[in-house]
């Protein structure tokens, strides 16, 4: 099987950008969960998930976004989702995620939104 999953973390203007690539399913979601946990533990709660290279997501992956949102917002941060492809967006859409998460067309727009709202 070549349906791998990779995460790359970088910093853009004090915002942590997690670029996810490949297939986010029940097999790979634990790695994503650990990556977000590591960022929160290090005090980084202004997160942008770059979904431009995310090929597939199932409920296990969506569940990771869902489970951390409250904790991160309580700490004055947010998880913003950026550059979701149409194929992946339809899964977010079925569950009403666009009403609950801040979703932008590009990573730059998501990063900029953090500075506009000063911390949230």
């Amino acid at each position, binding site marked *: *099987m070549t*349906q791998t999953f990779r995460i790359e973390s970088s910093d853009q203007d004090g915002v942590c950008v997690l670029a996810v690539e490949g*297939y986010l*399913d*029940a*097999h790979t979601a634990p790695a994503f*969960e650990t990556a977000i946990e590591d960022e929160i533990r290090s005090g980084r709660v202004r997160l942008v998930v770059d979904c431009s290279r995310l090929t*597939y997501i*199932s*409920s*296990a992956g*969506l*569940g*990771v976004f*869902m*489970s*951390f*949102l*409250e*904790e991160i917002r309580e700490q004055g941060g947010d998880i913003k989702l950026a550059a979701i492809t149409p*194929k992946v967006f*339809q*899964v977010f859409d*079925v*569950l*009403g*995620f666009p009403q*609950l998460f801040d979703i932008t067309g590009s990573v730059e727009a998501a990063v900029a939104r953090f500075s506009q709202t000063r911390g949230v």
Partner: protein
Amino acid sequence: MDAFERTFALHVPSSTENLAMIRDFVASIGSKAGFDENEAARITLAVDEACANVIEHAYRSDDAYIVTIRATLDSEVLIFDIVDNGRGFVASDVAQVDVEELIRQRKSGGLGLRLIRAVMDDVKYQITPGEKNELRMVKRLKHA
């Protein structure tokens, strides 16, 4: 069902590692049934969700068990049956909580069945306690 019914089956060890193989199997049958790429992807997602539930909940990720995915295609419908003999559950007991409420409760689960129901035209469970559990998901073909 009609005279042109075709059946396909995949048996895989109960490990999330095999979800990719299951998705390839389902996508190929979806395309054989005439669904476009988007629709085949949605059907693939529904079957992935069902199998992930079996692997993680019915078999508690013990790969000594086998998950069976059976597909039946005729001129009107594409049916996927997921069969296991692990811990069953009563579908009506699975609460349909709002996503907003799940977020407040910091839950990561509770979305799989919702996705399956959103994608498939009909979803049925047949649970024979201690024997087998069968989840049947039906998708009507576009032209039917």
